[in-house]
Each structure stands twice: as structure tokens, then as C-alpha cells.
């Protein structure tokens, strides 16, 4: 049994798809960020200035400075790899974070943020920071996200890794 195609439905479908496509593309264009490591940021500093970026690094505890009156917060993060698999091979996130903070030769970058200090901002936390690089090479953050892998992961290596 052949039915003649329903043109109303087809035209409606095309209009909806076109509208959705337009919405997705315009929303994507104005809201993308590159996800980068500290090293990548430092090596492409001049090209990236002013662009919207997201980066991840290990928080260096002693560098945290916070003025609760003005909500000015600044801290330094050290280079950690961006690749999850590589981090696993290096012994897990907690270990990588601790080594990055302890390593004086690791690439480092200063973050500046104006706002409430996150509860989890502390030494050897993983900071995922959104914002942009300014002319002085300071990362001006608009959003902070902190993760603290539990310490016990690093105390207890899996049998496979030995």
C-alpha cells in the first residue's frame, strides 16, 4: 500500500530542523572555549590573549591570596597533563597533583578571580578555570571549579600497577 507523502509534515520537519540547526550553530559560536593545560597556554600566549579559555591545573596552596572585603582572589596553578589516560598512567590524579605542586620546574600560571572563594580551593586541589588571558599573562577567571581526588587513591596503588 503506497501512501502519498505528507507535504505538511515534511515542510514542517524541514522548518523545525533548520530552526534548531540555526539555534545550535549560533549558540555554539558565541560560547566555545578551548580546554588547555598551563604549558599550552604559556606557549601560545600571544595568540590566545582575550579569547575565552578553560584550563586545568594543580593549586599551589601557599600562593592563595584572598581579600574578603573586595572578594579579590589570586592563586598559582602548576602544570598537569590534560589527558585522562596519561594521568592514570602516571599513578592517578591525586599523585599527579601532588607532584606538580612539589615540582619547582613545572610550568605555572597566576589566576585572578573576583568572587566568593570556593570551599574546596586548597593545596593540591585540581582547579578547572574558565576565563581569558590578559596582557600581563595573568589568567582572569570568570568561573572556578575545584576537584579534590581522595587521598587514599594515592596511598593504595592497584595491584595491576606493581
Amino acid at each position, binding site marked *: 500500500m503506497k501512501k502519498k507523502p505528507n507535504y505538511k509534515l515534511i515542510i514542517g520537519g524541514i522548518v523545525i530542523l533548520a530552526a534548531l540547526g540555526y539555534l545550535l550553530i549560533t549558540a555554539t559560536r558565541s560560547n566555545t572555549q578551548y580546554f588547555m593545560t598551563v604549558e599550552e597556554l604559556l606557549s601560545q600566549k600571544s595568540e590566545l590573549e582575550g579569547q575565552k579559555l578553560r584550563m586545568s591545573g594543580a593549586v599551589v596552596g601557599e600562593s592563595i591570596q584572598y581579600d574578603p572585603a573586595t572578594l579579590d582572589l589570586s592563586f598559582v596553578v602548576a602544570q598537569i597533563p590534560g589527558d585522562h589516560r596519561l594521568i592514570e598512567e602516571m599513578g592517578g590524579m591525586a599523585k599527579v597533583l601532588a607532584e606538580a605542586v612539589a615540582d619547582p620546574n613545572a610550568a605555572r600560571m597566576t589566576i585572578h578571580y573576583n568572587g566568593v572563594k570556593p570551599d574546596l580551593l586548597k593545596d593540591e586541589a585540581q582547579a578547572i578555570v574558565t576565563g581569558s588571558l590578559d596582557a600581563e599573562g595573568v589568567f582572569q577567571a570568570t568561573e572556578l571549579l575545584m576537584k579534590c581526588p*581522595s587521598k587514599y587513591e594515592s596511598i593504595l596503588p592497584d*595491584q595491576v600497577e606493581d
Partner: protein
Amino acid sequence: MFFLGLGTFILASVLMLVCLVLVAWQLVHKQTEISALVRILTNLGFGLHTLSIIALLIMQVSQDYSNSYVVGVINPALPTYLKLTALWGGQAGSLFFWSWIINLCLVIALNRRHILRDNWGYLFALINLIFFSGISLFLENPFSRVWQLTNGNLIDSLFSPAEGAQVYSGLIGTGLNPLLRHWGMIIHPPVLYIGFGAFLLPFSETLSHLILKGDGEDLVARLRPWLLIAWIFLTAGIVLGSWWSYDVLGWGGYWAWDPVETASLIPWLISTGLLHSMFLQQKKNIFRRINVILILGSYLLILFSILITRAGLISSVHAFGESSISIPLTLFLLASLVLSVGLLIWRWKKMDSGWEFESWYGRDSLFLYTLVLLAAIALVCMWGLLYPLATGAFTGNEIILDRGFYDRAVTPLLVLLVLLMAVCPLVGWSVASLKKLGNRALIPLIAAVLATVAAFVWLSKSWVALLSIFIVALGLMVLVLTTIRDLRTAEKPLGTFWKMRSRYGAFLVHSGILLIMLGIVGVEGLSQSIVGTLIPGDKMPLGDYGVEYRELTESFDSPEYLSVRAQIDLWQGDKVVARLTPGQDVYASRSQYVSIPGKHSTLAGDFYTIMLDYDSMMGYISLQATINPLVNFMWIGSLFLCLGAAFSLSSPMVLEQANWDRKESEEDEETDAD
């Protein structure tokens, strides 16, 4: 306890495999009825699985630190209830718990006999159970122990990793992250898991239906209770997570488009679409294909959501971190997807329900638009989740879509969807006439315009906020007036109301959505905030409120942390309306603190304070105060979602409903005639 726990778990797994073999053998011999033996073995297996869970719980409560999982989630100072709920506080335990929830759903279904009525349905559910139990057993075993080698090194292993190694129980854990010690967060995972697990049964049953029968008829009527229950739990789980983040995380955020949140929203959107399209199938026997697709899609998207949460592919606050389960889980998801799509294609022709698109504004078409909009929002979410992965794979540089992307892409779709929902009750089942629509819409329209004008004068000048308020007012008026009209024309209003529970349950859910929208307008568009540093006796004004800082108190309520609290009087006019105690719980041993907000909640909104910093020597604090108007409508609305669905669930889809609607459409035609 180790041997009891692991032993019962292994035995339970063996029984699952035995059932698998039995069922497969029967299917090869074309027997589709589930045998009594399989039923007994399944119940027995569930009993063993439960014993195994109990053994782990006993280890948690008795602080058996030879168990690695206990080391990770327990510390001596945790109160007992948190030692119990730590079962789902870490990766291994929560996966184990999840496999038990699947087993629970399976056993309930098998014993109730409304669903999973044949070997095929049972088989697919069982395969899921075996898969997740296998992950628990082989990859993330919660019974794994701490071993000390002869050289003193510690190792995490189930059995002795080397000669001379000893079980070691000297590691004391740091316990559950304090941020998670909130009852919203404590019940959020189990509620969500039950929702997830309950979707597995319709999924399995639908696959079985496709294999055995495949015309899509009579399927949703049977699955309806399960789908509704699953939807209620999924909704409650998502809302609890949102409420937790509003209440605990300190910045008053209720939704951040975090990948994990977004991933759990996708099955919710799709299953919400399902609740609508299955209603049409029950009424007019149409949309059969769409229903089958949506049932299968809901569970596949739940697997996808589990993958996002568990595998750590995407950076997220919630993610459990990197784990070995991402590859098996991805393969399992792909296999389920291929099977579902294959069966769908095979039965595609047979499921044709012969529906024709007749009118742009008939109620069928409005339901179709609802589905399209829900699917479009789901697609936007999917795009947002996968874009970083795709760009990472193709260009080597992950490109992330931030909150602005979702705000921009979802807002217009959401507004359209809610508008559609608001006007839907105005449109009759038969092709509605525009004139009649106009008559019914008149009073709600006037009310909505008045509300919008009032909002423009007193509340906000933002057009998105005003449009939303217009839609909320319109929608609520339409729902109330329709209910009044229904009941006035009925002979026995109360009897009708009770008989038509599924209709008024749906109305309640819809009014819940409207209230949630009102809450979102309040938080996003109308909130005000101020930050100040105060010494005792200082006052700080905000809106028609003022806060007066009295003193700073410190106490050791728990051996684990120091509670620092600012004592604050909240003034409204010349009266103190509340005493707020925002502060911090300082966990010295973890070098972490948790902000505890101080809140004054009324229907008009929350007055929300966070202590950003303090100096106990000088006695000053720095305080952020925020007014979130209307925010509590969000939680009331969420409650309506669950209550409405439960109310609807209590009523079987009965003939009275169909009769009623026939009456309604006749009435439509009568008035059309004048």
C-alpha cells in the same frame, strides 16, 4: 565478614549465570514461559545479593579497615547513619548498590507478574543485571582488601597479592567528603538509581514484545505503571540533586549545566515525551512507533548517563573520576543500541498505526509539537555534552561549550514548550475551531496580561522575565478554569474528580512545571545580592531587609570539625523576623571547610546568607546576603510533579476516561455549531 560478603556475592552471580543458561536453553527450545525453577533461583539469588550488601554494611558500621572501600569512605567520627549511607558514597560501593537495585527491580517485576512475563523480557533484564554485577565483581570489587607486603608496602587487592603478604587494617580513612553529608545528597543517589532501574523493565519488556509480537499494540497500557513510577523517581532524584546544590554549595546555584546534571536530564526529557505520546496511544491507538522508540531510548540514555558519570570522560564536579569501567560500559551501551535499532527496523512496518497529520492545531498535533520540543532540548543537551569529546578527538584540542551555550539554546525552546503546555487544555480532541478557542482563552488572557503589567510595574523590566510571567499566569488560569468548567458540568463533581485522576494528576504536574518556571524567573531575573565586612553591631541593608551582625560563636559539636557561626538578626521594617546562623564547619584534619548558609525561607523568597570569611580574634566577618525571590516555588512545583504523577498513577487508564473525552468532544461540536 569478608568471606560472607564476597561468598554470597559470588554465589548470587553464579545463580544469575545459571538462570541465564536455563532461560537461553528454554528459548532455544521455543519455550517462552518463565519456569518455576528460574523464579525460585532468581529469588534465591536476590536473597544472597542482599546478604552480601548487608555484609558490606556491617563492615562499614563496624569500621573494618582491612576493607579498601571502608578505608575510602569511613572514618571513626562519622555518625552511624552516614556510615550506612557511605554504601553509595564511593565508586565501588555505589556500583555494587546499583547492581542490587537492578536485582530488586527484577525480583519485584518477576513476582508481580504484570511485566517481564516471558523469557525474552526476563533475559534482557538479566543480562543487564549480570553485566553490572560483573563490573562490580571483576573491576570495582567493594570487598577488596588492604594488604601489607613483606617490604612494608601497601596494596589494594581481593586476595593475597604475593607470598607473605598480610591483611592490614591500620589505614584509617578520612571519610565521606563533608560536602556530601546532607540529607538531600544522601537520598539523591538511591532515588535516582530506583528511577534508572525501573526504566530497565519497560526496556526489556519492549525488546521482548518486538521479538514475539512486534505490532506495538497493547504494550504501553501494561507498561504505564512502571513508566510512571520510574519517571517519579527520576524526577525526584534530579530535583534532590538540584536542591542539594542550592542548599549546600553556598552560592545558591540550583542548576549549572554540569555534564552529569545534563546527562541525567536527557532521559528525563525523553521519558517525559513518552508519558505524552503513550497517552495518545492509549486514547487513539496512534504513535506506536514513537512510543517504542521512546521507551527504548529512555533506558539507552540512562546507560549513557551512567557512562558519563562513571567513566570520567568529561570534566565535571560530580564525576567519580577516572575508572576502568568506561570501555566495557561503552561496549555494552553500543550493543544495546544496535540490538534496539535492529529490532525496530525489523518490526517497523508492522508497527504502523496509520496516523495522518490532519490539522496544525488539533490536539494530536500539539502533542507532536511537545515531543519535537522535548527532543530538541534533549538534542541540545547531547550536543553540549559531545561537542568537547568530538572536537578533542578530531582536532586534539577540546572545545568546551559553557553555560552560555545552554542558556542561549535551551531558553527559547523551553519557553515555547511551556507556552504550548499552557494553551493545550484549551484545544479539544477533535479539530478545534479558532472561535471556540478564542472564547475559552479570553479570561486567562486578560488575567495573564494583568499579571504581566503588574510585574512590569513592580518586579522587572526584562522581557524574558515578563514573557515567562505571562505564560505562567496564562497556564495556571487555564488549568484552574478548565478544572472548574469540568466539575461544574459534571453531575457528581467529586466523583468525577476522583474518577479522572489521571487527567487532574497531569494538570497538577503541569501546574508544577509552571511554578518551577516562576521560581527560575525569580532566581535568574530578580535576585539581589550584597557583600560586606561587618563587626559586631554592624547593620547592612538589602531590599526591605536588614542584617545585624551580633557575634561569632565557635563550638565543637562533632569531634571532626569546628563549627564557626555568625549570629545574625534579620530585620524587616522595625522587627526582627529571624535569627540566621551562617558559618563554616572547619575540618582541620582534611584542611577543608564547608560553608553552611543561613537562610530565611518564605513563599515570597529566600533570604540567603553565606559567611565568606571570619577572624575569630578580631570578631569581624565578611558576609554575602542574597534575596532569591520566588525560589521556593521551584521546590513546591517539583513536589507537584511527583505528587501529580503519583495521583495519576493511582488511576488505571479506564474506560470512563475515554467516555468523558467523547462527551467533551461532542460538547465541542455542539458549541462549534452555534
